[in-house]
């Protein structure tokens, strides 16, 4: 179970890294004739009943007003591996592109956006996790190491942040910045804000480990050998808390992915031009869009998978 979860997480990261090769199209490419097109299923059995190399039926527009499409079963376009630098794409795109997950309302390939969006979403979440771990390990380490007033002060602040509803803190901090920013600024701003909201979780568990490890023989031995406080903390005590740090990292990552999705969903995150799981979900803020094209919820499924894998990984560890 645990191995399966770890493999799933690793696969998702790999897929994100390999997005340019896996996605059949450029995520920004718009296909005007295929606005809100449904997913195109590959077939292996032709209408005659014979087995074929995987192919798709091109879409034809049935109703422009309702944006309804149907498969044109009279035509078959075979899929081709490793053509044009992509893993899998149509051998011939004259009758339209292959849209394995359909298209969004601008006519962009939803699969390409999902894959490239994984890079943005996982990137923001990864950077935020790193920030939270850095702040949290430092704060928790200092609190556990020095105890007393420092401990009291740091942990009071941590508890205060923990009690606040995280999404409101994120909203308020985000809204205090200019609402329209270049995408690199949104990226780093989000990572910074999420780090500020997430560090207390890390600090709490690191503090408890450091506070008990500090009294162990090896720590006193290090001190009696003349190691300074910084050396004892960074070389001896913080490494002892690597287990809880790893657990916290696995738990924080999906919650930061969700935070990005929430911010972008309400329109304070990435703009529509930057594909991320959140900015894709923004399209689902319209009830009709959800009802008519459920495939716009694909990023929600991706978030679910990452969260499930992370939860299973932690569940088995504890």
């Amino acid at each position, binding site marked *: 179970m645990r191995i399966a979860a770890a493999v799933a997480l690793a696969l998702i990261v790999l897929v994100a890294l390999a997005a340019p090769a896996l996605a059949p199209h450029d995520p920004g490419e718009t296909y005007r004739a295929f606005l809100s097109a449904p997913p195109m299923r590959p077939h292996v059995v032709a209408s005659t009943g014979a087995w074929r190399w995987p192919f798709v039926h091109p879409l034809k527009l049935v109703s422009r007003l309702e944006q309804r499409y149907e498969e044109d079963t009279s035509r078959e376009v075979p899929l081709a591996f490793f053509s044009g630098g992509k893993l899998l794409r149509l051998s011939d795109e004259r009758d339209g592109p292959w849209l394995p997950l359909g298209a969004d309302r601008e006519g962009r390939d939803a699969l390409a956006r999902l894959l490239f969006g994984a890079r943005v979403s996982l990137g923001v979440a990864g950077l935020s996790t790193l920030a939270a771990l850095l702040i949290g390990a430092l704060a928790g380490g200092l609190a556990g190491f020095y105890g007393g007033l420092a401990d009291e002060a740091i942990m009071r602040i941590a508890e205060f942040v923990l*009690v606040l509803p995280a999404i409101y803190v994120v909203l308020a901090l985000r809204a205090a910045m200019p609402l329209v920013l270049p995408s690199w600024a949104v990226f780093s701003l989000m990572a910074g804000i999420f780090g500020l909201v997430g560090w207390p979780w890390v600090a709490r568990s690191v503090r408890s480990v450091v506070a008990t490890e500090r009294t162990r023989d090896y720590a006193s031995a290090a001190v009696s050998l003349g190691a300074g406080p910084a050396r004892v903390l960074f070389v001896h005590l913080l490494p002892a808390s690597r287990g809880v740090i790893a657990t916290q990292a696995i738990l924080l990552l999906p919650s930061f992915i969700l935070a990005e999705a929430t911010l972008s969903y309400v329109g304070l995150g990435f703009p529509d031009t930057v594909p991320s799981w959140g900015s894709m*979900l923004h399209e689902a803020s319209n009830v009709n869009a959800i009802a008519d094209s459920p495939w716009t919820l694909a990023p929600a499924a991706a978030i*679910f998978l990452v969260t499930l894998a992370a939860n299973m990984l932690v569940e088995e560890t504890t």
Partner: protein
Amino acid sequence: MARYFVRRLFAAVVLVAVVSSAALLLTSVAPGDFASELFGSGVSAASIAAERARYGLDRPVASQYFDWIGRAARLDFGVSLVYHRPVAELVRQRAANTALLALAALLLATFLGLPAGIITGSRRRGLAVSAIRGASIVLLSLPSLITSLVLVLLAARTGWLPTGGMQSAGAWDGGMLAGLADLAWHLPLPVLAIALPLAAMIERVQSQSLGSVLKMPFALATLARGVPRSRLVWRDAWRPSVGPVAALYGFILGSLLSGSFVVEVVTSWPGLGRLMYDALRARDLFLVAGCAAAGSIFLAVGSLISDLIQAWADPRVRQRADERRAGAAA
């Protein structure tokens, strides 16, 4: 006990003051203000300045802030710049809607999660245990944003439930009963979206806690006296084991508010979260601060209730509090 309450009350007042001040200051240092957001570009600088002067937004932040604090201490939270209505009135209405949502979700989550956790915590294996375990790890991975989107999809496809809003137009015309029925029809979707992940969280905590209580000597002694295991679990062991869940409530409150924000946005429930979000975007200073104050009152009351439940459930907590008080007095 009285001293304890006074101390808690003081902490609550500090929380409310800090949170609402922080919200006000953060919003006023943010680039752009109500006037510039209202008109956008293409309006002469003079008319923006006039609008600013009208609401006193041209004064230094510090003087605006102390003005607001002075009035807030007398429970006057100012007038919303957007709605031109007293903040207290707007917030009270919306906070009631959020409280309805949050309390219903908390109740549902407790009624689903607690018994489920008692079942999984008291038995090793069995169909029910694996089913609950599986369901709970899946639900734990379905945060409110995703759950509400999926529920909206289901509602839109099947038509069983309304996809959003809190009441249909003119629902209260048919009288009190028709209005309530309409409200009850709109409630399940947002409540489920908040409650399901919470229920899973409660189930996990309750299961672990009951498991450890059942390993205690008193449980073994009870079993040795010939008391059936189910009686031990449902009569004696569950109460000392709800402490961690009650402690969890202190933390759940935050996620309850967060969850209700997301769900309010997805299902257009007219609650505090939406109000604050709109106020933040419009830079409606006093409304932001009022919403923050209401939210923090909610948190403070909730954490007090969570502490009281803990004291009720576990005599050791009460004793520890007594000892601490005795130590402080000495």
